[in-house]
């Protein structure tokens, strides 16, 4: 991957490895683009959080930076009225079923949502939408960590590491719509499931849904 391409992001000229995705080229060069579900090694990005929208010259509508390949001569703007609207809406939708009690959350100060709110000047509360809290018991069956679904943003990063790094396959997405959730086979607790409690998913979680019982 020695071949390099030159592109422009927010007026800055950037050189990046050909074949890579725009999101990582920007982040590697200190240009922030909000993201929650992105995993650098992932071949087919989930593109499910809808937070990494950017304007690409020549595209009619904003595109997700995590799926946009870098190309020679690409001209990108990370902010525009349209981008900000999309990101604000996606962010508020994520917050609408996220338990917003940051002070009680183990991810307080290291949370992906807090980072996005800070970087983009978004509010960590609902202004237009009604809260729709998820009712679910916290799974505390694993020895070292717990899973609180009421904080889950369904980014799928835990599932990706479970499959591709840990090679276990204990957790996955189940159900549909508002009931969409991350569970084990037949909704067993983590201890009952084939989970080997390696803890990689806890590190992958951008919010406080999966967290270690003892702070690290």
């Amino acid at each position: 991957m020695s071949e390099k391409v030159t592109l422009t992001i927010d007026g800055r000229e950037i050189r990046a490895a050909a074949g890579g995705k725009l999101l990582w080229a920007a982040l590697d060069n200190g240009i922030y683009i909000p993201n929650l579900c992105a995993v650098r090694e992932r071949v087919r990005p989930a593109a499910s959080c809808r937070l990494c929208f950017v304007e690409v010259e020549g595209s009619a509508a904003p595109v997700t930076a995590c799926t946009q390949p870098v190309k020679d001569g690409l001209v990108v703007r990370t902010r525009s009225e349209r981008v900000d609207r999309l990101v604000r809406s996606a962010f508020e939708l994520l917050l609408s079923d996220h338990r917003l009690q940051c002070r009680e959350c183990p991810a307080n100060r290291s949370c992906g949502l807090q980072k996005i709110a800070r970087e983009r000047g978004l509010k960590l509360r609902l202004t237009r939408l009604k809260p729709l809290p998820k009712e679910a018991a916290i799974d505390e069956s694993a020895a070292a960590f717990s899973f609180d679904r009421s904080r889950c943003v369904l980014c799928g990063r835990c599932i990706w590491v479970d499959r591709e790094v840990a090679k276990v396959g204990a957790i996955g997405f189940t159900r549909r719509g508002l009931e969409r959730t991350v569970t084990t086979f037949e909704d067993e607790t983590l201890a009952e499931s084939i989970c080997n409690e390696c803890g990689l998913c806890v590190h992958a979680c951008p919010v406080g849904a999966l967290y270690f019982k003892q702070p690290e």
Partner: protein
Amino acid sequence: MFSVPLPLASGEREEILKIVGDILKNHAANRENLIPILQQVQAKLGYLPGPAMEKIAAASGVPAVDLYGLATFYNQFRLHPPGKHRVNVCMGTACYMAGGRIALDSFERRLKIKEGETTPDRNFSLERVACVGCCTMAPVVVVDDKVEGRVTPTRVDGILLECGASNGAAGEAPAAENTPAGREQAEGAQRS
């Protein structure tokens, strides 16, 4: 939040695994075929029991939780066995507006199960359907093949009583006798 699968009776698991094994013989067990395989299993068994999904997972190399994900994503798949009496509550627009939700809630409370579930004695299963085509009678409930119109919570009690009564009149055991599990659980319930 989560519904718990009904326990299987002795011998039921073996029967399930044999049927699934036969279906798997006719398919390449790859990701593309998972839905047709699940459909055939459900056509044979009436639902998708856990051991069936686990066997398909093992044969295809797909994590079992993904089979569970498929089975919970599509409305056509059932995770509970059909009951002896199948209660279908219409949630079409007319029935919904006329109080179909109230009828469904009443069944859920009376039977102590949620929509999509089956009572532990396997006597009743409860489902929602989208329009049965007789909106003038809204809210409509279809019990087995009998259409009930203008169903109120009081009528829900009546429907359940009639189902129970017809059991007694025919001199049958109060619990479902269509499965060994039903029989065992019914006996257990009577003892306790």
